[in-house]
């Protein structure tokens, strides 16, 4: 990875972008564009260049650019990445295929509907940004320094697209939501009873088959796979304890 902004020589890259417009480009097809890229050019940069100079009807989601908002999740050469930090010359081929995320309904081109994701995620009650960070004079929740920063989750939907189960079963809560539920459990934001009521069913924490692909593609180091496993351990412990108490 180019570290500190050395642009290097330019190279021409061909992008094959999935196009879909209900009623107009239907069924979907791939359009081919050519762009000049240097070492720091990202897939998002390339799409913006295409939109500005080659095809103004190209649609994609994006906002912030430094991988902080999570809107530009897409599949680049078959792997889920954030377009804003996926560098074109690091995709391993001169022809780069760009497709929308797999696990959400497609609206047009690279734009997917985030509604199902929000429905699964919101109940976990994830607060987006902790009100205080590492400022030692500011109050932080006790013990929170020892956890990975769950706020790192940028709700980008990438983990669901990479998850083999979320792709076939839309009822599955999915990695991001389960990781958020685990966070709510360990930070004490929610009671164990509440969290377990949310995740303890066939479409919840038990649906995961530990492919760990969510952790492999997560652009924000949330490691949802690890959190799902940890959540399951808490739940198993809870169930075993309850079993013996009753017995």
């Amino acid at each position, binding site marked *: 990875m180019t570290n500190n902004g050395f642009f290097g020589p330019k190279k021409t890259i061909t992008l094959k972008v999935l196009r879909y417009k209900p009623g107009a480009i239907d069924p979907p097809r791939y359009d081919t564009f050519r762009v000049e890229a240097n070492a720091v050019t990202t897939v998002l940069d390339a799409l913006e260049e295409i939109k500005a100079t080659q095809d103004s009807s190209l649609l994609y989601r994006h906002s912030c650019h430094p991988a902080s908002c999570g809107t530009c999740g897409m599949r680049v050469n078959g792997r889920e990445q954030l377009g804003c930090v996926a560098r074109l010359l690091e995709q391993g081929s001169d022809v780069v295929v760009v497709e929308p995320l797999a696990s959400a309904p497609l609206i047009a081109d690279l734009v997917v509907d985030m509604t199902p994701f929000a429905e699964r995620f919101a*109940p976990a009650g994830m607060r987006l940004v902790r009100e205080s960070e590492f400022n030692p004079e500011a109050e932080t929740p006790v013990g929170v320094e020892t956890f990975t920063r769950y706020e790192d989750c940028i709700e980008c939907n990438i983990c669901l697209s990479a998850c*083999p189960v979320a792709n076939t079963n839309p009822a599955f809560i999915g990695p991001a939501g389960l990781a958020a539920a685990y966070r709510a459990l360990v930070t004490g934001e929610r009671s164990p009873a509440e969290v377990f*009521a949310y995740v*303890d*069913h066939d479409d919840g924490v038990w649906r995961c088959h530990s492919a760990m692909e969510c952790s492999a593609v997560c652009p924000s180091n949330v490691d949802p796979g690890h959190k799902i496993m940890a959540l399951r351990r808490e739940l198993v412990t809870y169930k075993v304890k309850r079993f013996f108490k009753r017995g």
Partner: protein
Amino acid sequence: MRSIEEKRRSGIWIWQAVTGVLLVILLSLHMIVHHFVVEGGLRTYEQVLAYIGNPLVVVIEIVFLIVVTFHAMLGVRAILFDLPLTERQKTLVTRALTAVGLVVGAWGIFLALWLFRMARMA
């Protein structure tokens, strides 16, 4: 924290794990005894009968059969539940797999007991 809709509690994964661990032990026994203890493996009718004549073996085989069937049906259920099934379809799947499991189990137990009887009679 509200659930998307009321879902039935489930901990079936635990059973899958428990039966899986049991199977590691039982299958090892099954394989070793069947194929490696007897020189050339358990092959002829006589050998099978002699083996099954041991009451302990019958018990082990039946336990093995029950555990492996349970584990297999849970596995199939886990795969089918990865599909977008309605609650009704889920119930149907569970019932159908229970039925298949019961048939396989009954058939296997019948076979073991019948062979045990044959061995005792011989």
